[in-house]
């Protein structure tokens, strides 16, 4: 609402702030804000990961064996039992605590982890550099969106202290369960409104910056794929998030103001009729939610695709295959993602004839996704592939996203979704896309742009250990989920063994726990590497990867205002191995 007051500092570039607070904390510099987002979202990812570890431990051994002896608990179990006190019983989770962790794991990972990392952290840091801008269009708005995000995250976490703890209705918060749920859910609604506000501020900034602040010669057709991905993502956030904001507002009112948008007539609560006028419709929430949340899954994906395109182009030393097809497909994905939301609702009780429509749109959207993947794959042909750590992560993205996308097919077909809906198959599907897919790409991006951010490279050996200890265990966690789901094991079960039809796939859960432990260990070299390299990494210089895009045309780290002289762009983003050129890369800003 207030766009005033930001305009004048857009064209700055003079006067670097000197006080510590202005420089590192309340900074308006897109690079500092990007790093703030980077660190904060990694912290949230760690928190979400910790919750996941607890859940996997619970799922491996959900209930005490017959000969269980509380006196002889394993060290792990007795430690957990001590930490969580009455939320557990001898270290076995009470179901409400499991539901709390489940809801928070999803919410944190998506809204506070991957999206801020992919969009806000790397978008903020890299996007202005790649288009040759001195900063974002509205630097103060940018700073505000970080602080609003942080407040939203803290509010979300603070729900732990509400009576009965964290929200426990899943990250999807389906009404009316979420309406009758304990107070933590109210905190969820409020936190979501705050987080959404932050996202909206960010996306306005990204759109205006990308459209308005391109360096001379940086036409739309010369923008790196990453910039295009961020642009499409920003539009998705801009248009989809307000609808969830509306939905969350209605949910909040249902909870605290006695309205009944989602409460049907004569709904019972325990043994009494719920005190509200009624007449609302629970399915309305699902429409509002998925209208956001399907575009949201592409918000998780598109920045990752952009990153992978950058890393692959740089490390194959050849132009990307089908730049225009990739960009076109991304735009198409963006548009189509607004018309597929009800594929999450085939069995919700909505009109069954609508399913055919949404099956068709869903399978249509898989085509541009396949197109991007195919182009990236064909980009390898004729390259001279360097296998450094960022490249390993980028390469792993291809088959992993492949599995994620392919498993979307039987979910997108309504008849097979009859069997797979709400089972672990869905969980396996989207984790393949988001974890060894998007998150791996984001880790690759960390290795790739770290030298630009801090002036030094991360250690390659540690990086490779991190890579293998991430991708291999992830497959041992997520592939068995497909088996469990195929057998009919539901998601969101605190103790699957209470249902006898799940026992034939319960063995997998034990394997998944061990894989999760390896994954946890595998992150130690990464954290160590990140901090160690700040001081001891190999000095990077301006362009350590011999890349062509503009972020490599300014010092590492770039000074306040980024470019010493405003760059001018002469060619497309991926001019590698151009015949007759003196080096195998031809930077965008190099005069002909």
């Amino acid at each position: 609402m207030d766009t005033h007051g930001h305009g004048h500092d857009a064209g700055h570039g003079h006067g670097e702030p000197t006080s510590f607070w202005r420089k590192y904390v309340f900074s308006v510099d897109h690079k500092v804000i990007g790093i703030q987002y980077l660190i904060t979202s990694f912290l949230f990812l760690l928190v979400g990961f910790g919750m996941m570890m607890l859940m996997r431990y619970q799922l491996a051994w959900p209930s005490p064996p017959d000969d269980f002896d509380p006196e002889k608990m394993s060290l792990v179990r007795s430690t957990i039992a001590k930490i969580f006190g009455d939320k557990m019983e001898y270290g076995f989770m009470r179901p409400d605590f499991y539901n709390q962790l489940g809801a928070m794991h999803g919410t944190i990972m998506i809204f506070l982890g991957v999206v801020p990392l992919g969009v806000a952290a790397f978008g903020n840091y890299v996007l202005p550099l790649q288009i040759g801008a001195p900063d974002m269009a509205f630097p103060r708005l940018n700073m505000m969106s970080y602080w609003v995000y942080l407040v939203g995250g803290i509010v979300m976490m603070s729900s732990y202290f509400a009576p009965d703890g964290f929200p426990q209705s899943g990250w999807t918060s389906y009404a009316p369960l979420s309406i009758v749920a304990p107070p933590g859910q109210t905190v969820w609604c409020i936190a979501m409104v705050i987080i959404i506000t932050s996202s909206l501020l960010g996306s306005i900034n990204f759109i205006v910056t990308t459209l308005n602040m391109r360096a001379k010669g940086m036409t739309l057709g010369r923008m790196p794929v990453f910039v295009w991905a961020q642009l499409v993502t920003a539009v998705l956030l801009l248009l989809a998030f307000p609808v969830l904001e509306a939905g969350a507002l209605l949910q909040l009112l249902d909870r605290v103001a006695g309205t009944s948008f989602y409460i049907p007539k004569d709904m019972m609560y325990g043994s009494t009729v719920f005190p509200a006028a009624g007449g609302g419709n629970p399915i309305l929430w699902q429409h509002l939610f998925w209208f956001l949340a399907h575009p949201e899954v592409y918000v998780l994906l598109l920045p990752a695709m952009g990153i992978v395109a950058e890393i692959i182009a740089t490390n194959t030393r050849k132009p990307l295959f089908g730049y225009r097809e990739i960009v076109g497909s991304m735009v198409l994905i963006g548009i189509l993602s607004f018309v597929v939301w009800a594929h999450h609702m085939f069995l919700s009780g909505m009109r069954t004839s609508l399913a055919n429509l949404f099956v068709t749109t869903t399978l249509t959207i898989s085509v541009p996704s396949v197109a991007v993947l195919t182009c990236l794959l064909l980009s390898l042909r004729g390259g001279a592939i360097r296998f450094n750590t960022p490249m390993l992560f980028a390469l792993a993205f291809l088959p992993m996203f492949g599995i994620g996308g392919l498993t979307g097919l039987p979910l997108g077909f309504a008849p097979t979704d009859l069997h797979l809906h709400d089972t672990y198959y869905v969980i396996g599907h989207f984790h393949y896309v988001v974890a060894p897919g998007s998150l791996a790409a984001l880790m690759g991006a960390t290795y790739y742009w770290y030298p630009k951010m801090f002036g030094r490279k991360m250690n390659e050996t540690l990086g490779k250990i991190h890579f293998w200890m991430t991708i291999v265990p992830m497959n041992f966690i997520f592939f068995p989920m497909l088996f469990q789901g195929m057998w009919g094991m539901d998601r969101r079960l605190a103790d699957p063994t209470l249902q006898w039809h799940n026992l034939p796939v319960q063995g997998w859960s034990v394997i998944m726990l061990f894989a999760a432990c390896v994954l946890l260990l595998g992150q130690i070299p990464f954290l160590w590497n990140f901090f160690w390299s700040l001081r001891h990494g190999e000095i990077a210089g301006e362009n350590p990867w011999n890349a062509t895009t503009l972020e490599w045309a300014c010092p590492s780290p770039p000074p306040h205002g980024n470019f010493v002289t405003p760059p001018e762009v002469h060619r497309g983003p991926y001019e590698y191995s151009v015949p007759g050129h003196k080096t195998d890369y031809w930077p965008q800003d190099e005069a002909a």
Partner: protein
Amino acid sequence: MIKEDWGFQTGLPEAASSYAPNIDWLMNVLHVVMIGIFVVWGVYFIYCLVAYRARDGHTGTYHQTGEKASFIPDGLILAFEMWLILAFGIPIWASVKQSTPPPSESNNIHVIAQQFAWNIHYPGPDGKFGRRDVKLVSASNSIGLDESDPASKDDIVTINQMSVPLGKPTILQMTSKDVIHDFWVSNFRNKQDVVPGLNTNLWFEPTKTGKFEIACAQLCGLGHTQMVGNVFVKTPEEFDEWQKSQVAEKAGTASAAGAVAPSENRS
């Protein structure tokens, strides 16, 4: 560490409804295609990684050709998917979800879900369901059945245990008292959300006698995991037998306690 009844299954569970084979067929076709695509991609991927690895004297090639050709696989995939939708997706969906066998030739059941139990309401021999009223809901009458309605006299209400006859479709008309639940029997390959304030339907025709587990597939609160039940598919004779004994039992205890509250009956 792994209990002896825990296993490592990888496929689909036993199919036990008339349409399950169609769904399984589509499921298998899709997975074969998916694996096929993945293997083709994977082989090409590994070939590229090996053949185009950086090494002394090898440089990248600057070519921008053949871009249009990449639309061919895209087009083929789109065409293939559309064919699958038209040939199988829409017809199977229509037969399972958009049409219901004639109620007069089916076994009709009302399911009233609640946190955390399935109330199962049979019309009894007269085939008519008694009236239900939310005002009559009590600990002993969990679905609010109006016993003054003559149609209610021979109605049977069970909790979590559903008996159905073999050789005849069963039609479930479902609603929920409180939050959203989801009726799901993996062997029938069908599930359906059960929504308060709304009636949803699910029908199935069992093809095997035996016991199949009902699970709730939609998170409904802390007892969600335990919201389980069983479908007993009986031969028609067994089913009639069972129905008679239930009606007789109800008549016998009509003056006494009546149905037991679900929370006490859950195990």
